[in-house]
Every structure is written in structure tokens, then in C-alpha cells.
């Protein structure tokens, strides 16, 4: 059990009696980079939020490292969608990153110099130390995304859940997100990432979770990222599958 960073059993989530996720069961082995793939409205964000207890679960069970999320908060870091917050909020980039340390600092205690140092170190890892003292609305979309990733990095977690970190970012941000994912895996840690670009799945991830309200498939990229599975996930909407890449996929399986 405990060699699974995340295990989900018979998970069902519904908004106003309309099922969004139905009977999902899968496991994510420790040390893997998992891409969650599926069409718009497939319930990808809802899946992450349900695992983290941000949306109510109708039935099923979610376990992080074999335990409930509330006992594993210190080992799980969450990177929400960039659009989920108001970037006009009066706060500096370095203060957003320090939020990742609040649980550790304690809710009633002030942020100290060493916490800010840790936050700056995380910004440096993301390559945006020079923007640490900027108000967050003065950052580009890619820089904002990197601030969110730095906030997760500073938590020094064992499992990272990321909601579309590649969405609408520039090439250099995309590159540094990929480097961070590699570093996470090299440290023996796990990342689960909602991803849109089918072209790069094979390059970025070693496991894939195909989702469309139900679980279509979950496994290694070679076993699962196949044209029949993609067609089942996307229905008739899938028109731009990268055929050479697919051919490599068939060779693997």
C-alpha cells in the first residue's frame, strides 16, 4: 500500500446530482510523473480537488501514502490553476511563495527572515529571483505560474499535484517546469500533472491517466497512451493525434 503515493478507490463526485466523476479507481506509484489527460469537462480539475478534499466526495476513498489527506498534508503540495486567484491582490511574489510555509510556521506566528530566504531560494530555482519583490500583477503569465510552482517547491513535499502548469505559458517557463518535474522525479518524489498538449505527453511523463468522467485507462505511457484509448477518451473530437509519436507508442506496447 505505502509504495503508492496516491490511491483512489471507487471515487464518485457529483455536482447537484449530476455525476462529474464516476467509479474511479487507480493507483500512482511513488516516484512517477503522471499526466492526467482528457477532454474539457472530463473532470480533471475536479479529480485533483476531490482528492484534496476541496470538493465533497459522494462515495469512495482517497489515500495519500496509505493515509487520509489530513494526516499527510505535510507531504502533499498543490499547485492550483493560475486563473483560480486574483492576481491584482496586494502581495509580492516572495510573500506568495512564503504561503507554502505558513502551515510549518504556524498560523499565528509571523513570517521570519529565514522563511523569506527559503522563499527566495525557491524563486531562484524557478529562475525568477529578480521578480521577488514585484507585486504579482506586474508579472507575466509564465512568471505567475512559476511563483505558484515555487510556493509548492518551498513546501518540500513528496507528492505534487499540479493543475495545468503548462497552460498559456511561454517556452522558457515550459522548459523550467519540465526541469522541475525531472528534479522531483530524480529526488524519488512524485508529481501528478493535468496536461493538455498530447504532443508532449510522451516526452514529459512516464505514466498517464486518461479520463473522461470515468477512468479510460491508467498505466505507463507505453501501455496506455495509445490511439484506441485516446479515441475512447476524446470521442470524435480527437483530430490532431501526432501519428509518428503514436507509431513509437505502438512499438513500445
Amino acid at each position, binding site marked *: 500500500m505505502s509504495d503508492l503515493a496516491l490511491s483512489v478507490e471507487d471515487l464518485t463526485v457529483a455536482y447537484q446530482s449530476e455525476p462529474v466523476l464516476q467509479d474511479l479507481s487507480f493507483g500512482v506509484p511513488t516516484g512517477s510523473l503522471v499526466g492526467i489527460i482528457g477532454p474539457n469537462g472530463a473532470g480533471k480539475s475536479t479529480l485533483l*480537488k476531490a482528492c*484534496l*478534499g*476541496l470538493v465533497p466526495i459522494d462515495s469512495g476513498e482517497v489515500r495519500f501514502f496509505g493515509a487520509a489527506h*489530513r494526516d499527510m*498534508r505535510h507531504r*502533499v503540495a*498543490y499547485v*492550483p490553476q493560475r486563473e*483560480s*486567484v*486574483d492576481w491584482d*491582490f*496586494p*502581495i*509580492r511574489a516572495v*510573500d*506568495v511563495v512564503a*504561503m507554502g510555509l*505558513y*502551515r510549518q*510556521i504556524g*498560523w*499565528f*506566528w*509571523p*513570517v521570519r527572515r529565514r522563511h523569506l530566504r527559503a522563499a527566495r531560494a525557491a524563486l531562484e530555482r524557478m529562475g525568477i529571483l529578480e521578480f521577488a519583490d514585484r*507585486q504579482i500583477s506586474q508579472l507575466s503569465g509564465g512568471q505567475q505560474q512559476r511563483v505558484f510552482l515555487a*510556493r509548492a517547491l518551498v513546501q518540500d513535499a513528496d507528492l505534487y499535484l499540479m493543475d495545468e502548469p503548462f497552460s498559456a505559458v511561454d517556452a522558457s517557463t515550459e522548459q523550467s517546469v519540465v526541469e522541475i518535474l525531472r528534479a522531483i522525479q530524480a529526488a524519488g518524489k512524485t508529481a501528478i500533472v493535468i496536461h493538455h498538449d498530447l504532443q508532449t505527453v510522451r516526452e514529459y511523463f512516464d505514466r498517464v491517466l486518461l479520463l473522461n468522467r470515468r477512468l479510460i485507462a491508467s498505466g505507463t505511457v507505453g501501455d496506455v497512451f495509445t490511439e484506441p484509448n485516446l479515441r475512447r477518451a476524446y470521442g470524435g473530437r480527437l483530430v490532431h493525434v501526432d501519428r509518428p509519436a503514436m507509431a513509437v507508442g505502438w512499438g513500445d506496447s
Partner: protein
Amino acid sequence: MIEGLPFGNVWGLAQAANPWVRAFGLQDHNTRIVVLATTLLGLAAGGIGVFTLLRRRALMGDALSHAMLPGIGLAFLVAPSLGLPEKSLPVLIGGAVISGLVAAAAILLIRWRTRLPEDAALGIVLSVFFGAGLVILSLVQQTSGGSAAGLESFIYGKTASITIRDAGWIAAAAVPTLILVGVLMKAWALVCFDEGFARTSGLSVGAVDIVMMAAVVLVIVTGLQAVGAILMIALLVIPAAAARFWTHRVDVMVVVAAVLGGVSCLFGSLLSAAAEDLPSGATIVLVAAAIFGFSMVLGSQRGLWWRLRAHRARRERTREVALAAQADMPLGQRSGGS
């Protein structure tokens, strides 16, 4: 006779006669205490106002303050039968808090049981409770004659109606609120900025919201006498909004808003103490509004004046670049040239 008096005495007589000099010179012990208390209130309201603004709950404070009026009227009626003096501040405040809580429950009930949006629920509750409050207060004043005089200070605010004892109550509520703002600043800021992340970090957003609303209710009831129910919202919103023009950091914004709120209350209540018939709520709000206007235009972070200058400078640069480019071009290619 008058020529024979030393100059200092004439000045002394003038001082004694002029309420403005007496008020602004803080010569009455009473005025001094009351002004100190309302300034503390302004500090607390400004500080907590930042978070109601960032949490987009500013109108909730407005609805709650208006909703406290019927409770005050009823408390005035009920107090004698409990063997308490009818104008005892704790009883009136107890009534205010209870009707404020009933109003909050009504707002939540309307939102959960109907499909009406929150602003509609706030509008309904605000106006209905305020209407009920006006009816009850006028009934109270008709039936109890002169003894109810001064209750209208809860509508418009009147510094002169505050006794030294009341000032003690105001300070006793304002100081802990300020401490609470300081201690919970981090948690409140996180919830206001990123609720989902706050919850995954193990923070109970419900508990955070309840403490915030409780602190807002506390500040409102404390401010009822000095500012009044109608304008209490101004003290929560205006200093916080003005502070936004001076900083882009929440922690600094809290300090700036608290200071601006304190200054507004200080000058507003001094003005109202000097001119006896001036409702202090209105004068406090007008002082706050002047500070807001100043901040909006000249505030260092987003002030209109600086933005206009930056815009002009940009336009000037673009023109210079365009002119320079044109000057570099061969004569025949210049626009308009032939």
C-alpha cells in the same frame, strides 16, 4: 475695563467661549477621552476593513450595521423590565448584536433556500431591518418622551453622546480587535488570496470567516455611537480602499488603513465635538473621503496623477522614437515628402 486686563486673560476668555478652540485644544477631559476612544475605533475598523474588502464582504458589514437598529430600540424597551437602566450601553449593544446575528442568519437563509444572489439577499435584509429599526425607534421616542433622547445618535453618530464610561467600552473592544487583526493577518490574507490553497494547507476557511465576521460585528457595534448605523460601512471600506493606493503589500496596507481610519475618526470627532449639532458619523466620513480622494490622485502605488505622468512619458518616448526613425530615413521616404 477690558483695556486694563492683561492680554493673556483676554485670550483665555476667548478660548473659553470658543468651542472650536476648546475641542481642538483637547481642553475638556471628556473630549480627550472620547476622541481617544473613537480614534482607537478608527484604527480597528481600518485594519479589519482591509480584509472585508479583500474578501469582497464589504456590503455584508453594511447590512449588519443597518440591521442593528431594531435591536437597539427593543433593548431600550426591554431593559427596564429586566431591572436595568434603559440607556445602559451593554444592554443596547447586546440588542444590537442579537439583531445583527438574526440579520446574518436571514441573509444566509435567503441564499441557501432561494436562488437569489447574495447582493439581493443583502439588499432585502438591510432595508427591511433598517425600516423596522426606524419604526421601533420612533415608537420608543413617542411613548417614553424625553428619556429616549439620544437614541438617534445610533443612526447618525454623535460624539457628544458618548460618556467616559462608553469610551471605556469602545476602547475595550477596539484594542483586542487590533490585536486579533495582527495575529490573524497571515491566515486572513491567505484565505482572501487563495481559498483552495488555504484549505489544502489545513486551514479551516469556515472558522476563519466566522472569526472575521465576529470581529466586524464587534467593530460595528463599537462604532454605532460615534459613527452611527448608516455610515459605519464607510469606516470599514474607505480607509482600506485609500490604503490600496499607497502599497502593494497586505501587511503594509493594514497599517496604512488603520492609521487613515484613526486619523479620520480623530478629526471627524473633534469637528463634531466643536460644532455640537454636527452628526459625527457624517463628519468622520467626510474626513475619510477627503483622505481617499487625496490617495486616489496622489497615492504612490496606483495614484491617478502618477499613472497619467507615466502614460504621458510613454507617449512622449514613442513620439521621439518615431521622429528619430523618420529623421534617419532618406528624404524621399519621409511621410508626406515627395
